[in-house]
């Protein structure tokens, strides 16, 4: 039997398979190259970048929760320039797509960031993290306010010729509605979900465990919520959807693909098993072979619901 086809197309971005890494859980790729060959991946999505470097939040920054973890890294990163100079050359050595996740405190910073990244050789697409507050305009979170969201995406859209993936926040009432806004503002694709805001209190200290008080919940705990939201998003928009949230193995990834996602991202699982993303690729192959399906695209969106 011929090996099944795993290649998918996300808004013109051709991936050898539908498996990416989730931003912030895979560093700049380097960290994992000791554990497996990055060529195995559909795409590497790097830690969120801002125009200048950021120091991030004080510690503790992480706390484990039942089947999940909260993080409040505070978007610590080396800044776009250092990324392009010091990290991108390494990633260019691999035959895998590089997707740069980016964010800003203002619309101007988003635009500037998108521009700088678009000019860099070896960045194949941009993923826009809109789950951060607009510090210029009353700390409204870009990704939970329809108006602000529309504005920032429209602006970023003009600043780049690369495929633009907008990463949706789950901290909303109707994520399908938010996806539609992204679509009409010019996004080529959407990804979902980002982390769900949570909090753990140390009852003896009577204080939150995290220095930042709240953090973002990720890991298997959120998977049922993520699958539901990705399903809703897939029904709401025509542009491709990248699904993520608690994927630990190929079976989990398949839930998102069957729900309609054209690609998936592996996040927290990388922390537990450094080869997790690569293992998901292998598992998908095996599933297709076992089920006698010759092309992963025949699976996508087949949920009977």
């Amino acid at each position, binding site marked *: 039997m011929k090996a099944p086809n795993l290649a998918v197309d996300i808004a013109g971005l051709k991936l050898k398979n539908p498996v990416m890494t989730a931003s*912030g*859980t*895979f*560093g700049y790729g380097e*960290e*994992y190259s*000791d*554990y497996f060959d990055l060529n195995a991946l559909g795409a590497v999505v790097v*830690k969120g970048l801002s125009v200048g*470097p950021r*120091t*991030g939040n*004080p*510690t*503790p*920054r*992480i*706390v*484990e929760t*039942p*089947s*999940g*973890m909260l*993080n409040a*890294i505070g978007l*610590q990163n080396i800044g776009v320039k250092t990324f392009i100079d010091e990290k991108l050359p390494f990633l260019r050595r691999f035959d895998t797509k590089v997707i740069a996740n980016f964010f800003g405190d203002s619309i101007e910073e988003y635009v500037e960031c998108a521009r700088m990244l678009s000019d860099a050789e070896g960045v194949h697409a941009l993923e826009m993290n809109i789950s951060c507050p607009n510090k210029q305009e009353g700390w409204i979170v870009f990704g939970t306010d329809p108006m602000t969201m529309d504005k920032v995406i429209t602006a970023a859209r003009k600043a780049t010729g690369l495929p633009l993936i907008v990463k949706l926040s789950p901290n909303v009432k109707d994520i399908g509605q938010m996806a539609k806004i992204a679509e009409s503002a010019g996004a080529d694709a959407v990804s979902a979900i980002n982390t769900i805001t949570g909090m753990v209190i140390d009852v003896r200290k009577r204080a939150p465990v995290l220095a930042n008080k709240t953090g973002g919940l990720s*890991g*298997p*705990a959120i998977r049922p919520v993520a699958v539901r939201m990705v399903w809703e998003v897939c029904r709401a928009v025509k542009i491709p959807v990248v699904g993520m949230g608690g994927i*630990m193995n190929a079976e989990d990834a398949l839930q998102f693909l069957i729900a309609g996602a054209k690609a998936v991202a592996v996040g*927290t699982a*990388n*922390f*537990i*098993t*450094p*080869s997790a993303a690569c293992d998901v690729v292998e598992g998908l192959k095996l599933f297709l072979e076992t089920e006698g399906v010759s092309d992963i695209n025949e699976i996508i969106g087949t949920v009977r619901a």
Partner: protein
Amino acid sequence: MHRHFKAKVVDNNFAAEAFKLITLSPVSEALVPLPGQFYMLESGRSTDPLLKRPFSVFRFNEGSLQFLYRIRGRGTTSIAGFNKGDLINVVGPLGKAYPEPDGRFMAVTGGVGIASLYSLLERNRGNSVLFYGARNAAELLYREEAEKLSAKAFFTTDDGSAGEQGLVTDKLSEFIKNEGKSMPVYACGPHPMLRKVAAIAKQNNLKCYVSLEEHMACGIGACLGCVVKAKSSVGDYGYKRVCKEGPVFDADEVLW
């Protein structure tokens, strides 16, 4: 390149109340660690607890790795439940090792911190002056062995049930005043102890290496969860990753 492997539990026995020693035998090729490096050990079969847990390598040889650990919370309770013959997932060796001491050195440790320093003592047999504090005699784990490996050894306990009653850092100060002038200091233990050791070393112009702990998610430098405030060339400070730039730091780099 085999930093991620399966290992068989050879045994997993109590070293004292609430302390266990687990011996692992990698079933595939694994790298040999250096003193001060650590491993991430699987914390159980399910997704709760979810994350691996970091442990300093206590002793090792070609075919086996030993970890000495205190049972604290859910992860270590789960690890304490592993049985002989179980296969567990392991990542490591990770992080920076202690710089190789060039002759005599002082080793300062509190509690289970001995796990990190023990292999350094072994590797530099007869070169260490050891300062080892614990809550009580029972928690002075591997006391006799550690004493044999050292040129000199001082023990303190909180309750006076072994060695001198008092703080290991007082013992260190006293010794430095009398004779320790030129030796570097290697320390691993609770954060407040390390801060004190660093201060003592600084006062006496001694090189000082500390092994730090922080909550970790990945252990391999990707999550930025385990950072400590450190001096930075740009800006007032920067965050360094305990799992990558550490766990062993030059005490001078750390913003205490």
